[in-house]
């Protein structure tokens, strides 16, 4: 009973955010809208003139598009695995974050695959993937993986939101009839009976159980697009787990940035608290350490054995005149700085954690660039080509414009979603508030260990 009361008052507090657009928000939307439209113009240019307008050529056949693909899809996978784990462990503090995690999943997994479409020369023949699929091809694995995951992600978002839809459909706040109808539709007849609560919980448990291994599988499949080729720097057995960790590391960083942004913009300090940043900070340290270990192991084996082509790629990566700066930034700044800033209590604060997150997200984008481009610039046979655009890849304005459009799409979709449904889940947060009001009962007393003397 208390929960319903609390959720009512929470919704009252959040309602202005949902119903009104402030000038600042409109400007924000306008800015990203323009960036998005510019990207659409670039898309028009690319579709009409062909891939010649990009920086990609016969050696470097993939560029920032595939970098963005890995980047976004990794972020998407994170929301589900993070949300899934926190749900299964029933970490009470997770509740205000679940909506953001689920939205991050769905939005990124919508944007990511659009970048792979930008790599495809004949979009008019895209349906061949469904009428002539060859199961041997890792691309087909990825198509299946992404589509499966998208369904899972949307379900996760939806199941987590059903109770809020029900509350929104019955709220006393004024809203246009169509909007109430929409909420009514999405609430799917949820009226909070005991049976419905039980079914919903069961469904979420099962979905979390399914989503966690799914994320590991789909993330590995993504890495195998590269791992299955005979290319130095790609053909590595570590690539599957490496990509899984890299994805979750990046995604958790983005999660922190989203939390920071909404906390500031929607004035949610009371719900997205310092502890949330700190807990995610701890997760970041664990992931960063694991990811850093994989990175070290990967480069060390390539460098130590110095097989011809691996050595060539390693040399390009470490040479300050080539990819050196990017390499040191991505692999040191992106891993060590967050671990130090978050790991040492004296430095730990919302601001430093957010700064670390921003740093590592940027570093991880460059890391993906370092995986893709230097390898493609190092074919097994000498290039012996004097056309500079064939020897060295550099992205053109079209590719940058479309990169910007992806970020813009992320911002716009998040903003629109936050106008439709509270960014902090009303029901679950109310539940958490009510639970935490009660005195904490220690269910797990420390076992008494009798030390042998």
């Amino acid at each position, binding site marked *: 009973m208390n929960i319903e009361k609390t959720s009512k008052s929470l919704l009252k507090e959040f309602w202005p955010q949902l119903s009104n657009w402030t000038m600042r928000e409109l400007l924000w939307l306008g800015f990203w809208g323009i960036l998005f439209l510019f990207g659409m113009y670039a898309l028009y240019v690319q579709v009409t*003139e*062909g891939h010649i307008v990009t920086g990609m050529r016969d050696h470097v056949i993939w560029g920032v598009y595939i970098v963005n693909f890995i980047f976004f899809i990794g972020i998407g996978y994170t929301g589900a695995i993070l949300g899934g784990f926190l749900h299964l462990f029933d970490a009470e503090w997770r509740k205000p974050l679940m909506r953001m995690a689920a939205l991050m999943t769905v939005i990124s997994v919508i944007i990511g695959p659009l970048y792979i479409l930008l790599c495809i020369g004949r979009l008019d023949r895209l349906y061949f993937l469904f009428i002539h699929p060859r199961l041997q*091809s890792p691309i087909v694995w990825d198509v299946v993986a992404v589509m499966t995951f998208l369904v899972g992600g949307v379900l996760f978002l939806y199941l987590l939101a059903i109770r809020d839809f029900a509350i929104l459909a019955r709220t006393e706040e004024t809203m246009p009839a169509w909007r109430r109808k929409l909420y009514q539709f999405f609430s799917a007849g949820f009226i909070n009976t005991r049976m419905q609560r039980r079914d919903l919980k069961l469904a979420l448990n099962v979905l979390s159980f399914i989503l966690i291994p799914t994320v590991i599988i789909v993330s590995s499949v993504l890495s195998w697009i590269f791992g299955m080729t005979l*290319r130095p720097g790609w053909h590595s057995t570590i690539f599957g787990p490496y990509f899984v960790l890299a994805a979750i590391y990046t995604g958790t960083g983005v999660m922190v940035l989203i939390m920071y942004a909404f906390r500031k913009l929607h004035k949610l300090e009371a719900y997205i608290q310092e502890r949330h940043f700190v807990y995610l900070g701890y997760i970041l340290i664990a992931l960063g350490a694991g990811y850093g270990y994989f990175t070290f192991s990967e480069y060390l084996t390539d460098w130590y054995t110095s097989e011809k082509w691996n050595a060539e790629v390693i040399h390009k990566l470490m040479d300050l005149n080539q990819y050196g700066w990017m390499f040191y930034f991505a692999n040191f700044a992106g891993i060590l700085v967050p671990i130090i800033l978050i790991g040492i209590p004296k430095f730990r604060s919302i601001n430093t954690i957010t700064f670390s997150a921003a740093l590592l997200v940027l570093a991880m984008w460059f890391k993906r660039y370092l995986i893709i481009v230097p390898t493609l610039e190092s074919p097994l046979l*000498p290039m012996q080509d004097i056309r500079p655009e064939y020897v060295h890849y550099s992205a053109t304005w079209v590719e940058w414009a479309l990169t910007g459009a992806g970020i813009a799409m992320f911002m716009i979709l998040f903003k629109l979603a936050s106008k439709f449904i509270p960014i902090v889940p009303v029901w679950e947060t109310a539940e958490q508030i009510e639970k935490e009001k009660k005195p904490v009962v220690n269910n797990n007393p420390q076992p008494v260990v009798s030390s042998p003397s």
Partner: protein
Amino acid sequence: MDNDKSKRRNFIRTGLALGLATVAGAANELLGDPKEKSGKNTVKLLSPDGEIVEVDSSELKLETHDHAGTMARNVTGREGIEGRKFVMVIDLGRCRNARKCVTACQKMHHIPENKEWLQVKLMKDNDNAAPYWFPKTCFHCDNPPCVKVCPVDATFKRSDGLVLIDNERCIGCKFCMAGCPYSTRVFNWGEPEVIEPTSCPPYSPETSTPSKHSTVEKCDFCPDMVREGKLPDCVTACPNGVFFFGDENEDTVTNGSETVRFSALLKEKSGYRYMEELGTKPRVYYLPPSSRMFPVERGFKNLTPELKARFKDVQ
């Protein structure tokens, strides 16, 4: 079976004769008008069994480049030529970077000068090794990493050993280009330039021409020519007989003027496959650049400055 054998024999015979004609530099005289010379003119040739046979010059046909055979037979290009297992041997000791193979290939496939399905690279295996010219076709691997990764069956392996591309199926994802460790494949980044489009045959995976935008292309071993019993254009265009083309089933390869046992050639000249360690099982074999016919410097003669600049890192 008998029919098959005689087809094979014909193929080798014509290939041989054609090569002879080219080398003699008397192609026109020999091939000008078959009827006129019928019965008067016989040519001695080496049969696949190692016997000398006399062939009437009327059997020699002029190279027409019309791809007509493929079209007439209405082949889809996905099935291999029955009973065949095509193979190529490239003798590195004979190459002097004349680039006739490159230009002949471009002419045959109506592709522009800046697109090379066949490349001649200058290789230097280590600091002390002597550089050598290295013509590179598609290797038509028996374990093709490009075919494995194609998501839509646009590139495929045929029973006759060829790896071809169906440009009407290709979605342009370029995964095969990432898969190929030899950088054999090229992509039509913009609207492809088709040279002499009027004489271009209708498209088939065997003609590989005209080029289609935003799809992947590569060396195809000219199966449309082979179907007519002719040799691929790079083979006949080479003035030094670098390329030997033939059938592994028959154990015979020819560069036009010489026809030899495939197995014996590999044995005598220590034939090898490039980057055997990759496990791709190429159908192209190389003979090491020993007992060279030309010094490597000959290859720089008559090169444009642009072409010379390609090799500046090797010299």
